């Protein structure tokens, strides 16, 4: 019998229950192949929690992680939650300035930093005190980002990882009473003004989703889950907490392997994975480059995808190569996690061209389709999907101004405007139609085009920059940057390098178009429709 989320007050209750039942079983397989048992994970997490308490961390504080995926990063996030603090993960290979901006925005008390990333610390302004630092060894991860050339020294005051783990474990109630309303983690996503925004989620939010997933997918301790998504991406919530709630094994896929389809196919076979969850982009690459036929993938029971629309030809190719598992299309923004779901009926008819629906609402979510004036739209009509229920996030961290733009009250309940335009079809649930703002999805990542523009506008040799996104057969969505150089056109190589230093890889423009000046509307605003015509080949720059 698995602990019901209905009685759990915290995600930590789930890990502790699994440890009591399955202490000797393998909780984690690290990217280097080493195994961590439930008892070891619980012990490390409790030692980290004790260290955090000793360092003055109070309930409600934030703990930062800039670490590669591995047993250490998993132990840190559990340790943070056991201390009743919220964990704040970032893309450890991401630009230093962006990572530092996120950790500063969250006001982290303690930062667990991979030893190769001391360059992140240079981005703290002198006036702001650095958080308490823990230096975490990374071993050979086989990975390096745009920071590869930067070797920054660690401050002498940094605490060694091994010293943290020597703390005697904190008891489950050692940080005071747990409650579902307490923050568990803050996931930062692209912000339209150039500043990432922190989606703050509570233990109750996560437990509502985890319990729903338990009901639908009924995992067992014999299951082996993939952990493909990085921890700052909300797909990881399923991997981390559903797998460990059920005493199953979570196979951590490192950042480099995650991008390498041939190696991923081998990993699914060798690790005998039963659950796979990732973006459609990763699965499409697996179908195209993974040589799936060369492997025995018969253990796989469920393939879940979320984060973007799965282009039908790629989905068909994948399901033809993997006819056994059930395929599930999950939909939901980070603010709610998954709120609709649908199983893909197989085989996919060869003449089908219509995308699959995102499906009906999950049992723990309520939904409304509303028009611009917030009037309810009848089944069959177009409108924006609004969600209510226990999975609804607490708010944007430190940004009540943003909260007022997405929340409203109706019938005594709080509703969230997803911004996603949908149509409900009787018997099928919702169909996703798109968005009316400047947010796009690429490789599962939410990208505010305004954030890309803000980064380009920081380039000293660019006078102006405007960015458009358009559909692309090869990569789903292409991002074109239209720019005006101060003097002569810049080297493309130099521009791309600048972007790699400023933006996560998924946000870097694919193409640059130089203009003497940007086209303007009669009200002197950038004429985006004109730029889109240029991008799609309908007009000269």
């Amino acid at each position: 019998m698995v602990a019901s989320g209905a009685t759990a007050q915290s995600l930590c209750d789930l890990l502790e229950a699994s440890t009591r039942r399955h202490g000797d079983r393998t909780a984690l397989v690290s990217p280097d192949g080493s195994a961590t048992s439930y008892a070891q994970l619980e012990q490390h997490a409790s030692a980290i929690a004790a260290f955090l308490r000793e360092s003055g961390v109070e309930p409600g504080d934030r703990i930062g992680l800039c670490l590669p995926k591995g047993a250490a990063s998993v132990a840190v996030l559990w340790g943070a939650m056991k201390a009743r603090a919220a964990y704040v993960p970032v893309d450890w290979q991401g630009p230093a300035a962006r990572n530092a901006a996120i950790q500063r925005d969250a006001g982290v008390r303690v930062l667990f930093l991979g030893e190769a990333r001391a360059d992140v610390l240079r981005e703290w302004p002198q006036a702001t005190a650095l958080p308490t630092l823990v230096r975490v060894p990374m071993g050979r991860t086989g990975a390096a980002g745009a920071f590869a050339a930067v070797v920054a020294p660690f401050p002498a005051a940094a605490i060694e990882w091994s010293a943290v783990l020597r703390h005697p474990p904190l008891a489950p109630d050692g940080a005071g009473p747990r409650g579902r309303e307490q923050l568990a983690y803050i996931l930062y996503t692209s912000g339209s003004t150039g500043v990432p925004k922190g989606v703050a989620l509570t233990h109750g939010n996560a437990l509502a989703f985890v319990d729903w997933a338990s009901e639908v997918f009924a995992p067992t301790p014999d299951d082996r889950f993939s952990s493909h998504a990085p921890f700052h991406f909300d797909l990881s919530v399923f991997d981390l907490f559903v797998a460990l709630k059920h005493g199953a094994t979570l196979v951590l896929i490192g950042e480099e392997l995650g991008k390498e389809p041939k190696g991923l196919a081998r990993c699914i076979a060798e690790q005998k994975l039963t659950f796979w969850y990732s973006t459609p982009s990763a699965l499409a690459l697996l179908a195209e480059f993974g040589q799936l036929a060369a492997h025995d993938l018969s253990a796989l029971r469920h393939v879940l995808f979320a984060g973007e629309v799965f282009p039908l030809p790629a989905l068909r190719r994948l399901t033809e190569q993997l006819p056994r598992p059930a395929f599930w299309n999950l939909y939901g923004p980070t603010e709610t996690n998954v709120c609709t779901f649908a199983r893909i009926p197989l085989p996919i008819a060869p003449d089908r061209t219509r995308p699959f629906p995102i499906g009906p609402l999950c049992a723990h979510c309520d939904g409304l389709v509303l028009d611009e004036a917030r009037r309810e739209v009848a089944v069959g009509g177009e409108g924006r999907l609004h969600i209510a229920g226990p999975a609804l996030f607490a708010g944007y961290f430190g940004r009540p101004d943003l909260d007022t733009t997405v929340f409203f009250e109706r019938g005594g309940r709080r509703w969230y405007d997803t911004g996603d335009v949908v149509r409900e079809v009787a018997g099928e649930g919702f169909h996703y139609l798109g968005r009316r703002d400047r947010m796009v999805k690429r490789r599962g990542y939410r990208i505010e085009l305004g954030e890309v523009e803000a980064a380009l506008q920081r380039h000293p040799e660019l006078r102006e920059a405007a960015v458009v996104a358009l559909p692309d057969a090869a990569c789903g969505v292409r991002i074109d940057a239209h720019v005006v150089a101060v003097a002569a056109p810049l080297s493309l190589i130099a521009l791309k390098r600048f972007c790699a230093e400023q933006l996560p890889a998924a946000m870097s423009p694919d193409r640059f178009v130089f203009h003497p000046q940007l086209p303007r509307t009669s009200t002197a605003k950038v004429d985006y429709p004109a730029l889109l015509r240029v991008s799609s080949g309908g007009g000269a720059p």
Partner: protein
Amino acid sequence: MDEIANELRRFLLAEFLPGESAANLRDDTPLRTGGILDSVSTLKFVAFVEQRFGIEIEAHETGVRDFDCIADVAALVQRKRGR
């Protein structure tokens, strides 16, 4: 070796850097850490190299440390063809 490097350069310029001057894409220009190739374009580049030079490149040979510039890739091609 120079011929291999030039062939790689021609492909990279045509495919990922249209309009860029060949002189700016040096043998040691970082391709991955410099933002020229992302994860998807890296796969395309690997597929091109395999096909054009008739070699098989293993996953562990395409890590960022060993596969980040034209010189790295040209050396890998030469090593593989020499076998």
